[in-house]
């Protein structure tokens, strides 16, 4: 790899990281809002699906740009919601799942602090 290529890649990577930070901020706020709505008794399934989509997209990018732990926890959240989505006891699952989602939010916020 030439030094010119390295610097081009660095430029793209820096731009992607900045964009990722903005997206992460939006997703944190959005997930918090959805969690509150579920707490209030709004239908959980569509909100969990929306959270799953955000976790899935976060997982795809986070590890590639160095946020390995965030990528890993995002993948687990995505998979876990997939399993809840197929169950019949969403209310019971939500009680046990909520703390994991809070951990995910913490990890997202930590990633904001890193860069």
């Amino acid at each position, binding site marked *: *790899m030439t030094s010119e*290529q390295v610097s*081009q*890649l660095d430029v*793209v*990577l820096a*731009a*992607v990281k900045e*964009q*990722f930070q903005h*997206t992460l901020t939006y997703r944190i706020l959005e997930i918090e809002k959805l969690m509150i709505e579920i707490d209030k008794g709004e239908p959980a399934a569509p909100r969990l699906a929306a959270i799953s*989509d955000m976790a*899935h*997209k976060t*997982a*795809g*990018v*986070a*590890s*590639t*740009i160095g946020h390995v732990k965030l*990528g890993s926890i995002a*993948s687990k959240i*995505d*998979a876990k919601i997939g399993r809840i989505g197929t169950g019949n006891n969403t209310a019971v699952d939500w009680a046990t799942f909520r703390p994991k989602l809070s951990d995910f939010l913490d990890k997202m916020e930590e990633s904001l602090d890193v860069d």
Partner: protein
Amino acid sequence: MKILAVDDEPIFLQLLQATLTDLGYTDLTRVTSGKEALDLIQSSPDSFDCFLLDIKMPGMNGIELCHAIRALPEFRRTPIMMNTVLNDRAAIDDAFAAGATDYLTKPINRAEIKARLGMVATLVAERKRRDSSVANGAATSEHHGRGYSFPFELLEVSGSVEFLALENYLLTLGKIRSLGIAATGIHVANGEEIFAMGGPDGFADTVIDIGDCIADTLKRSNYMLAYAGNSNFVYLTGRLSTPNMLDFSLELNAKIAEFETLYTELGIDLPQLVVGAPALGNLLSPPGPKQILGRAMKNAAREVEKHADLLAA
């Protein structure tokens, strides 16, 4: 190589483009939905040499898109690599069953994507060379000039994938998950004679007939079948659901015997199909899950040796 990448996360597409450009793949088109991709592909049939598809996308997902691309005659053989966060068995099985050639998991690993795309680029270059030979009359068909050892796809044969995809499927599953798989080899004992009599085109037709018979015999099982070249077929089934070797062999040879009149009229010998014992994954076996494919073919070759006198008669 002209690549189309489909992912609903624009940031990921940017990262992918940066990585591919860095690896020398500069002709990349990016779209963010399956529908957009399909519209683009259908409007320009000569447009892409390779597809990189995310799986989990709103609307048409990557598996559905893979199916839709494979249904277009121009793209039946175009390499499709899935590129996804999902690494569960169901997603992997669905992707290869839909016609994926390879499966990469996110995050982007530069070395891995370089190796896997390198393999695809070689495949694309070989196909372009062959298509151009057919187009300019230097070859009479896509099989023209191909040697006996060449693996090729069993187009239209139910449950078939190209041999490269079969290898990639096992690599994607990894050593532990491959333990649940059995590979069975089938060798055409008189394949070289059939090749000599029928030439590459006649031999290819015979291989397709055999592929159809194998698929028909396996129709009650979940399986993946490929032709590996050198008169070797391999199919994968679940370890616990692999058919009994003897019953399978009898049924398969009965099915191919139905072609006897046709082959006699064509002046080609009826294929003699020899089935090997299933090869099973083993934690202590040599590294690389795709080793079971080689062992399956060796098992079939061993059966040919064992019954050489009978086959000669």
